[in-house]
């Protein structure tokens, strides 16, 4: 930990106001019962008592992103000749995401290994990521769907965050956990943290870790899921209740699949990138009409396999799930990914897949 400050509850809006100078600050707010991230402004009351229903995924990976604008123009001398004008658009506003949970920030570390590597750099993602900072709130009480401690994380995990807040008496201990985070601590609303606050925070963090249900190790699932690749009886059973909506994937802080379409009207249009979901029939639907994932069983296999097997295999370890539990909590029919992974590890395989 680089430096520690103290924020009194009464000074929260003062700090948020300071952060919002020249930046967009996204905070969790209540809207008709749901808690979603919205821009902070005067009169906006952040909800910090519970996990937001939608993760702050939009901050770095918008559900719709314009990649480029294009227009066609005809040559007046030769109407058969059409010129195409393309303008690339990168929109990366300076942003602070405030009040997410460790799982929300950690989700982007899963994206980073895909979109910002030595081999491939996605400029749209990378520039947004570079302009977005995360002030994260350590969890002090787990929800019934939380399992971050089973996928290599914890309720006080600072991975992916720039500043970590821990609840202490009367406010929060504020710690910078990245170089970029340090700059956010230079605000009059933050006082030097007394030793008592640091001790309280340490105790609170230990209590948060202890409050989690016992961890189960998800790492062995990688090999077991590959083993069950062709065991479609298993996948038919565990996907029976799935209704093939995309709520699980859209609410997931680590799901990063997208589709690209040209939305053209007359001679102009834009190329946009939008969230895709492996729960949809159109996911991997080939132009020929063939779909290698023809039923919901194949699609659910993709979701679970991607997170717990293919991704850890490609990236040598990390699981592409942050254990936030939204896919369980908000699934209309309570599909439980924890149960599927555990069954994959426990049940004998009927039809072994190719290694």
């Amino acid at each position, binding site marked *: 930990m680089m430096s520690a400050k103290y924020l009194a509850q009464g000074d929260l809006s003062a700090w948020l106001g300071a952060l919002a100078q020249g930046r967009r600050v996204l905070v969790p707010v209540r809207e008709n019962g*749901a808690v979603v991230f919205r821009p902070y402004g005067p009169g906006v009351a952040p909800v910090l008592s519970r996990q937001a229903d939608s993760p702050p995924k939009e901050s770095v990976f918008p559900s719709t992103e314009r990649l480029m604008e294009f227009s066609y123009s005809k040559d007046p001398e030769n109407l058969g000749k059409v010129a195409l004008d393309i303008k690339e658009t990168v929109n990366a506003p300076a942003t602070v995401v405030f009040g997410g949970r460790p799982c929300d920030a950690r989700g982007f570390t899963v994206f980073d290994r895909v979109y910002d590597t030595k081999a491939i750099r996605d400029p749209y993602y990378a520039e947004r990521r570079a302009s977005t900072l995360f002030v994260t709130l350590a969890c002090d*009480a787990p929800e019934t769907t939380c399992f971050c401690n089973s996928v290599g994380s914890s309720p006080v995990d600072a991975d992916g965050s720039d500043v970590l807040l821990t609840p202490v008496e009367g406010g929060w201990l504020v710690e910078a956990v990245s170089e970029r985070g340090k700059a956010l601590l230079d605000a009059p609303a933050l006082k030097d943290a007394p030793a008592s606050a640091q001790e309280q925070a340490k105790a609170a963090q230990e209590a948060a870790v202890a409050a989690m249900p016992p961890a189960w190790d998800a790492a062995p699932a990688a090999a077991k899921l590959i083993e069950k690749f062709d065991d479609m009886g298993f996948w038919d059973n565990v996907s029976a209740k799935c209704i093939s909506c995309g709520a699980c994937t859209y609410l997931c802080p680590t799901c990063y699949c997208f589709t690209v379409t040209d939305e053209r009207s007359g001679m102009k249009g834009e190329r946009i990138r939008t969230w895709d979901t492996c729960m949809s029939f159109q996911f991997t639907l080939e132009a020929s009409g063939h779909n290698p994932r023809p039923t919901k069983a194949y699609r659910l296999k993709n979701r679970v396999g991607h997170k717990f097997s293919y991704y850890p295999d490609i990236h040598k370890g990390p699981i592409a799930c942050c254990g936030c539990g939204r896919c369980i909590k908000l699934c209309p029919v*309570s599909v439980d990914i924890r149960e599927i992974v555990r069954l994959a590890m426990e049940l004998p395989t009927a039809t072994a897949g190719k290694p």
Partner: protein
Amino acid sequence: MPILDELKAAIAKRLPELDVVIGWGKGFDALHHTPVFITSEADLDKLELGPLSVQNLATYLTRYPKTKKIGVVVKGCDSRSVVQLLQEKLINRENVVVFGFPCEGVVDLEKVKRALEGQGMEIARVSEATFQGERCTLTTGGKAGSLPMADLWADKCNRCQYHDAVMSDEFVGQRLDRKAEDAYADVAAFEAKPLAERQAFWQEQMSRCIRCYACRNACPLCVCRDQCIAQTREPNWVSQRTGVEEKFMFQMIHASHLAGRCTECGECERACPVGIPILLLKRKNNKEVLELFDYRAGIDPEAKPPLLAFKVEEEKINERGW
């Protein structure tokens, strides 16, 4: 005999002739039931029944080939979906066995969430819950709380006219024969607001939509699914863009396609992960259908839904009289 045991016995009796029976079982925590798929007598132990049995299991009927023999456990409202599916010939009568029971109502977990928040408790941390008589008792983080059931029933249950399944092959328990009134007061109240206010309301609500289509896929009558025009590229009716216009357009299509077909089971609204009150749109259409055609969806398997019929002159619309 407790009603759950009666249900198990009824399912056990019919199971040999069925490929699967769909009921409810324990979910991931004390406040959730989840669909369970019974294929053997051993599976019967998984069954649960009560105010947490919220999902409308009729939605699964059209996800199986029509040749499969399927049993389905239904609440009164869910039974109307089965009737509507039969009316539209989307399922085969001889291949479906309906298990009905007298439904006292289901709990709206959004209401539980709000009531608990009022007491400084979080629904997502509830470790125990019991529903007995007039009260619901809950434990969260070692703290006990009690809520009156009267505050927790889903709105659809407070206006329910069909507690007992309207159609069933096996009915367990004693019929409730209870009937509430529904004068569409919620729709009328919304309609009384100025147009600009109504538009602003939906714009704010739709801005939260994550276009996950849970509303569509939870709906037992939304049967186009993979062919839904909200997603097709040929024709490209709705842009892939996720603006409020596109989201609202989709909800308009959804509501229009349900006009005169929607049985108001409320699954669209319950399934929404971000709490958008979209049942109101369906109820608006149902109010119109009721007034114009004196018709409620999913009551009589022999009736023809008005928007699936053609009559030169409607009984209640005086085409030539003005």
